[in-house]
């Protein structure tokens, strides 16, 4: 059963509900009405499991104390009843839930090499998009997924330890600041969570993943391209080959767990880089960028 088919989704989410997101099952309890609303909207196409089924992460979003429900209301994220972060203002609840879910996966899923990168796919060609904050990775990813590209992930690229496959998550896309309005006007039908203002990343909104991306979340893909995007206002579109040796070093910098995995991480990443084509990509116009990406996979 999908989350959208649950008539009592709100109360189940308050009490605790098992939801399957790609290869992971989260047991999620949310004590915040706004975050429950955003979660139900953005995860409506994901399957709900019975509460007695195994789950990987037991997470909860609730006020850190009774007093904080009323006085400068705050919210905190708990994983297995332990709060890994400091509390945040209550109106950042849903964003905190998404960051917390990222934290759970990045800190525990060491059966993958985890890269801080978006990953998308079309015509069986996957593109990994590593990018520093502000590089325009999520904006480009969001735009592409409104134009027939499948979303595998916006933040965490999960590479198998043999470097041969990417496992999708298809969770909402985290857009920040100007990107929110850019994508809202670029794709008027896209759905967004409420905007959380004044977070440590500025204003944040999470865009609902496309239905066809979620429907195909169990389909693994082979890595094909690694492209380092960079948004530069008024720039010409430029796509240039990157030496694989430079790409390898950059990918180590973007990895969450390369050092934890040791030899497995080294083997996975060397295989990944040796079997993909690597590019840098500067863009300013989304239509132009998408046309270029389409040309890569329509050849």
């Amino acid at each position, binding site marked *: 059963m999908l989350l959208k088919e649950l008539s009592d989704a709100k109360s189940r989410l308050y009490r605790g509900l098992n939801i399957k997101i790609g290869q992971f099952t989260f047991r999620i309890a949310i004590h915040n009405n706004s975050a429950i609303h955003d979660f139900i909207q953005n995860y409506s196409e994901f399957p709900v499991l019975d509460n007695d089924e195994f789950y990987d992460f037991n997470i909860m979003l609730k006020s850190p104390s009774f007093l904080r429900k009323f006085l400068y209301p705050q919210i905190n994220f708990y994983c297995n009843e332990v709060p890994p972060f400091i509390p945040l203002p209550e109106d950042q609840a849903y964003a905190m839930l998404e960051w917390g879910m990222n934290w759970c996966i990045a800190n525990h899923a060491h059966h993958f090499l985890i890269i801080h990168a978006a990953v998308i796919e079309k015509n069986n060609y996957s593109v990994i998009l590593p990018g520093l904050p502000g590089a325009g990775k999520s904006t480009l990813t969001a735009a592409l997924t409104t134009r027939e590209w499948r979303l595998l992930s916006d933040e965490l690229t999960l590479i198998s330890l043999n470097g041969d496959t990417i496992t999708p998550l298809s969770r909402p896309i985290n857009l920040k600041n100007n990107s929110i309005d850019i994508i809202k006007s670029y794709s008027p039908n896209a759905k967004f969570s409420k905007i959380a203002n004044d977070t440590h990343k500025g204003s944040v909104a999470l865009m609902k993943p496309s239905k066809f991306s979620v429907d195909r979340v169990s389909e693994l893909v082979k890595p094909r391209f690694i492209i380092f995007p960079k948004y530069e206002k008024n720039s010409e579109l430029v796509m240039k080959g990157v*030496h*694989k*040796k430079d790409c*390898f*070093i950059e990918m*180590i910098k973007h990895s969450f767990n390369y*050092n934890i995995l040791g*030899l497995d991480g*080294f*083997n996975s990443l060397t295989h990944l880089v040796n079997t993909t084509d690597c590019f840098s990509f500067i863009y300013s116009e989304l239509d132009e960028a998408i046309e270029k990406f389409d040309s890569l996979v329509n050849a």
Partner: protein
Amino acid sequence: MNCDSVIVLTDYCHCRYIDDVHFIYVEKTNETVVLDSDLNFIIDRLKNSSCSISELISIAKSIFTDESNLNIATFININIENLIAQDVIRIDI
């Protein structure tokens, strides 16, 4: 360093080529070492079997023909010391 010393790759050294550059993962230190491509011949030679420093100097002389013999011997000795320090190779006892 004694030219008759025989060196081998350490047990915890793993080498992969990317773009004609050797990347070496050293399990003991959990470090990834990027090797200057001028030194590829050392790793390639050691992948087959152990080798003396004088043999490496001899191979280097056939590659870097413009360099003086003295420079080549120094180049090899310095880099061998560096690779030993990084646990990529060791003196075979």
